[in-house]
């Protein structure tokens, strides 16, 4: 490599490192105001915040994660909300984790919600069957595509937050076996679907 090329590469490297450091120093508005506004209790429901375990802490890193169990009637629902503003990589495809945990996804469908659609998955492990719902929301648009969410977050990062509001991943899982009437849940915990 000639000295001229070395100089150009060295300048490029310094520029890239500075740019990367500067980018990290510029904070983006997060979704904590929206997440904090979620009611912990109300007419017909109550909830309990669940701390993250060490593995979850390691995986989510600096991302802000709310893990809460809502009790509606006799049923319990685990709700996980991940705001990846401080760690984009914590926002992931939940089906990836389900498969990693040994569940087989035997059905996927969409549930129409305000501003788009959530994804409902039916999971099976041996004789056990569960369902879960998840969606990505920026407060206005809701969808079940992780690739679209990553793209939203990249655009947001590149435009210093001007492209959209911070998207969050909302994951809802009934803790007990049995079918879930998601339409009914939408009326019981409507604030989740408006997040």
């Amino acid at each position, binding site marked *: 490599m000639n000295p001229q090329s070395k100089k*150009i*590469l060295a300048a490029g*490297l310094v520029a890239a490192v500075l740019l990367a450091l500067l980018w990290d120093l510029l904070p983006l508005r997060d979704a904590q105001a929206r997440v904090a506004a979620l009611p912990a209790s109300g007419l017909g429901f109550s909830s309990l915040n669940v701390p993250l375990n060490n593995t979850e802490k390691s995986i989510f890193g600096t991302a802000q994660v709310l893990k809460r169990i809502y009790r509606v009637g006799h049923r319990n629902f685990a709700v996980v909300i991940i705001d990846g503003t401080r760690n*984009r990589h914590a926002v992931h495809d939940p089906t990836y984790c389900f498969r990693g945990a040994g569940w087989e996804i035997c059905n996927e469908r969409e549930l129409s919600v305000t501003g788009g659609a959530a994804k409902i998955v039916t999971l099976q492990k041996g004789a056990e069957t569960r369902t879960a719902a998840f969606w990505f929301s920026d407060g206005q648009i809701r969808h079940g595509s992780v690739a679209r969410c990553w793209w939203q977050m*990249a655009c947001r990062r590149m435009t210093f937050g001007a492209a959209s509001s911070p998207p969050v991943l909302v994951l809802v899982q009934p803790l007990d076996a049995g079918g879930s009437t998601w339409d009914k849940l939408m009326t019981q915990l409507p604030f989740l679907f408006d997040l």
Partner: protein
Amino acid sequence: MKNSRPLPLVEIAILAFCVWLSRDLLNAWQHSPHDRFGWLALLAWLTPFAVRLSRRETFSANAFFLGAAIVVGALGELSEFHFLGHAALALALAAWLPASLWLAVWLAAALSWMPAFGWGMARFPDGVILFSRLALALAGVIYLWVVKNPAAKS
């Protein structure tokens, strides 16, 4: 014997920058079931690089690949797409090998150690994913090092 050749500091600094951009790989290999043992694929894929290093030949890195590594890595950092950081690392490593068309095949096989591979194959059992990773990494190595570059064997 004393070696008076100066260390290629700029090239090493670019490689170090790309390693830093790919620091999430450790977390993925530790915690993601689909990426577990991905480091084995990286080790297999690195064989031509290690062999070249062990020969202590006079070699220098390719400026084009290093430049591409900086650009791709910076884009990955700005957009927070880790895949681009991993691609930058692959480019920065490829820069140390003699440039050829066959190198592109080896470079494409770098996908084998990336979490993107596990994400793309998430529908398959973990064992199948690991086997496919190793097969792809070894295919890239065999293609570059044995099939298309017989001189490398000697």
